[in-house]
């Protein structure tokens, strides 16, 4: 496949479109670096909620900005390397005695699934909701952690 030859170092994902996405991201990064706007790029997700995924050696971290939601209305599910966040954001209407000047905040339901690069230990996933930000700590599965290999002479 052409993509494999162009991008030989990329790991193979089950979905071929992930490769296109990787290439698109990589090209955007290169273009940003050339234009000297690195870091000032518009962040975008296209769907609610916007989320950031980071990792260190042991965990993945997912942070999502979901202000004004009751924890009872949030549902987080994890299966192998897929994590879903679903919920409902309610905007309570004020009574008739109020007249609105501005209505910019939106309510509704959302449901989002992300696929992580490797499996997580789903029984040890922690979720916290503070100041309108949902933070998930997802420990990597034992077999997905990098291992130090001793080199013998």
């Amino acid at each position, binding site marked *: 496949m052409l993509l494999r030859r162009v991008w030989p170092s990329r790991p193979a994902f089950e979905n071929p479109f992930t490769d296109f996405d990787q290439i698109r991201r990589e090209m955007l990064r290169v273009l940003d670096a050339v234009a000297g706007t690195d870091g000032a790029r518009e962040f975008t997700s296209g769907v609610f909620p916007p989320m950031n995924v980071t990792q260190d050696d042991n965990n993945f971290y997912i942070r999502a900005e979901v202000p004004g939601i009751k924890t009872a209305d949030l549902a987080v599910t994890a299966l192998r390397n897929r994590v879903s966040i679903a919920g409902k954001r309610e905007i309570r209407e004020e009574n008739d005695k109020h007249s609105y000047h501005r209505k910019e*905040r*939106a309510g509704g339901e959302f449901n989002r699934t992300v696929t992580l690069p490797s499996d997580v230990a789903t029984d040890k996933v922690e979720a916290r909701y503070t100041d309108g930000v949902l933070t998930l700590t997802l420990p990597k599965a034992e077999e997905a952690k990098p291992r130090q290999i001793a080199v013998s002479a």
Partner: protein
Amino acid sequence: MSRNSSADIQKVEKNTAPTLPEQTYPGPVYTPAVDIFESDDRISLLADIPGVKAKDLKIDLRENVLTLSAHVAAPEMPGESNVLCEYAAGTYFRQFNVSEVIDQAKIDAKLTDGVLRLELPKLERAKPRQITVKSS
């Protein structure tokens, strides 16, 4: 019309906005989404400012200009590397002209789960008075 219907929530990008004068913090400045409504005795304001802690929120009203500003520090710990990045933490900033006369001493602000609720009670003399029309 209700916005609580089961329709899917609409994605709204965080809007970056230039501010004058410039901020002392580097980093992006965002315009939070707000609802503002008025009743006979008060103006209420709701603003979505996820990630803001109460101590970092500054609310200021002077010369009829209401200023909201809040700085959000990046929550990532050192040693974390990005896998997917869709938003950035930064400063929320927004100013409003408040034409009504507000009773400064009675302003009440509550911050719960990233939503600020600001109650601005009107001064006694700014409240509407019912005027009865006498027929001669």
